[in-house]
């Protein structure tokens, strides 16, 4: 299939294709980070993760509408405020959900799955009732559209760069919180031994609540970022959920580094395959490979040695 193209063409296509893989990688990392915290650190299977992301997207949409109507002069910068608001909204909802629902179920991880699935159905219907069944389009400021012109055949999409930058920032932030801050140490202590952590004076209930809220908040930011590349509708969240879980499980649930490594390998496999075959077959093969490897290595790529 390469016969017809010049070396220069091929070179730039490989650059572009690598870039496409990187964007997909960033998307997967953004989706999976929040879940990696919630599932990896707390063992809670949050099936409503997609709906938390969509909440972030709707918040972004509302912010953009607000700026368009009332502060058109500041429109070009609204996105940053929107991301913060998305974080707060999703985080607040997460905190509420933890308090009402999740805290009763820590001993029954499979039941959190069912309960959060119920929650996701209710959230979907709530979005539909509030925002309508149709998808909404988020208008982006002009500087975020278009691409950087590198050569005639290499164009770097600006929103792709933006998503990648955001991913790097959030990942560093999460890593800092989890591994350097006092609060992160508490979270990890609770994960390793809840009873002992409680005994040394950590308020485990509070740690749980904030961990869950943090995971949901990151989902909100991810949703906000996705308005640049995807669609926002009541059921859009469901599209992401299986991919996200696979990324987290494949990486080894409790490991942030694993999540990143698995997002990288899945995204690169998929985007390379997509170039050689149709998109849906590429997806099937990628998923099959992931499931196959998980069967051989159920603990995922990077597993923490934890004694049960």
């Amino acid at each position, binding site marked *: 299939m390469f016969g017809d*193209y010049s070396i220069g*063409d091929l070179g730039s*296509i490989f650059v*572009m*294709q690598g*870039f*496409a893989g990187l*964007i*997909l990688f960033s*998307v997967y990392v953004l989706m999976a980070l929040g879940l990696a915290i919630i599932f990896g650190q707390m063992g809670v299977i949050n099936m409503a993760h997609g709906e938390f992301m969509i909440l972030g997207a709707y918040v972004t949409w509302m912010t953009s509408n607000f700026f368009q109507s009332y502060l058109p002069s500041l429109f070009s910068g609204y996105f940053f405020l929107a991301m913060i608001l998305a974080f707060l909204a999703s985080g607040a909802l997460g905190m509420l959900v933890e308090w009402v629902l999740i805290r009763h179920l820590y001993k029954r991880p499979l039941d959190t799955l069912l309960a959060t699935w119920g929650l996701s159905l209710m959230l979907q*219907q709530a979005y*539909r009732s509030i925002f*309508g*069944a*149709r*998808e*909404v*389009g*988020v*208008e*982006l400021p002009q500087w975020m*559209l*278009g*691409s950087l*012109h590198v050569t005639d*055949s290499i*164009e770097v*999409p*600006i*929103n*792709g760069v933006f998503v990648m930058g955001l991913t790097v920032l959030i990942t560093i932030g999460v890593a800092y919180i989890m591994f350097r801050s006092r609060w992160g140490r508490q979270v990890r202590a609770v994960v390793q031994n809840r009873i002992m952590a409680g005994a040394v004076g950590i308020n485990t209930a509070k740690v749980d609540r904030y961990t869950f809220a943090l995971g949901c908040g990151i989902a909100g930011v991810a949703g906000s970022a*996705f308005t*640049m*590349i*995807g*669609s*926002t*509708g*009541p*059921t*859009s969240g469901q*599209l992401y959920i299986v991919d996200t879980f696979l990324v987290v499980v494949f990486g080894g649930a409790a490991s942030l580094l694993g999540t990143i490594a698995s997002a990288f390998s899945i995204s690169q496999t*998929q*985007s390379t395959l*997509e*170039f050689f075959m*149709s*998109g*849906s077959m*590429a*997806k099937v093969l990628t998923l099959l490979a992931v499931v196959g490897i998980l069967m051989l290595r159920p603990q995922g790529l990077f597993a923490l040695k934890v004694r049960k």
Partner: protein
Amino acid sequence: MSDEANKGLLSPLRRKLLMGMAAVPAVTMLPRASFAQAPATSAVNTTGLAVTDTEVTVGILHSATGTMAISETGSIEAEKLAIEQINAAGGVLGRKIKFIQEDGASDWPTFAEKAKKLLVNDKVAAIMGCWTSASRKAVLPVMEQYNGMLYYPTFYEGLEQSKNVIYTGQEATQQILAGLNWIAKEKGAKSFFFIGSDYIWPRTSNKIARKHVENVLKGKVVGEEYYALGSTQFNSVINKIKLTKPDVIFTDVVGGSNVAFYKQLKAAGIDLSKQPLLTISVTEDEIDGIGGENIAGAYACMKYFQSLDNPNNKAFVPAFKKAWGEKTVIGDVTQAAYLGPWLWKLTVEKAGSFDVDKIAAASPGVEFKGAPEGYVRIHENHHLWSKTRVGRAKLDGQFELIYETADLVEPDPFPKGYQ
């Protein structure tokens, strides 16, 4: 189809009605009580349908919930509006239309189940409904078994024809060929890249388009790609498009994937005002989600645009907005859904009866001059004669009409040479 079967049942009354029809050739949007006298129920309803002396019941069967609710909401609104307008104009054979709305919930067996309920329990005289091919395929055996009448609004892949269905949208050849001809002539296009969602309608449409490009236009298809429904990552295919440099990108991506596709296309530096793109799946409804700035410059090929400049449409658009809100937009399918109740009413009046067999037989030749798209007529094969139009997407989410076929295009659900 047995067109001749019911000729013997021509009642004097029906003859009178037919003469009435002939005398008033322009059945405009709101005919003022053309038929004041209501004929007796026993005469117009011999098969036990839900028809009383004052009312007739029809069913509306669309997804109000689930993934398809996004698309089908517009159809529900259009059908309700049409029914309301028909009632305001005196109803059908002197009877007000009452509707029962059922939710297909984006689930094909639920569609079949609800269709059966509407026919068996509620005895509706006709059903306006279905959107996806899958839901229609699920409902079709039910319609045929219980002898119902379905008015199906969506443009679809063809390869189907039933006594019990009137297809008010375009079938694939009707929609595609004129658009391809136009773009080949206008843009000198020789190479085409196809990209679609992975299911039957895009695959069949692309098959027809490929045959046409290769055999008729003597061009070349340089790529054909399918993505699973709901995919949101198109960067790889966009790279392939850049590599193959096609004259035209031809797309039938549906649903939420559209949003991702056009946003990423734009972000990758493909300027739709320079790179011709012809879509058969993006209506004004979809642009709502995509954002006008992401798709401006693309060409769409279908039979109706909200911006059409004709008297019928000038009355229709404000009426629709008045009923459902200033911000609503009207896409191709919404307009086709609006035709359903009207075509049924006209057919009932032509047949002088609500009986399904008589309606099926009377359908060919029924004309609707008040159609927002202009003028439509039902073909022998129960599809509509209609014009095909090409529009260019503008920043504000509307299409600007660029081209329309001079004549009505004949529907051809089983196209020879394209299978």
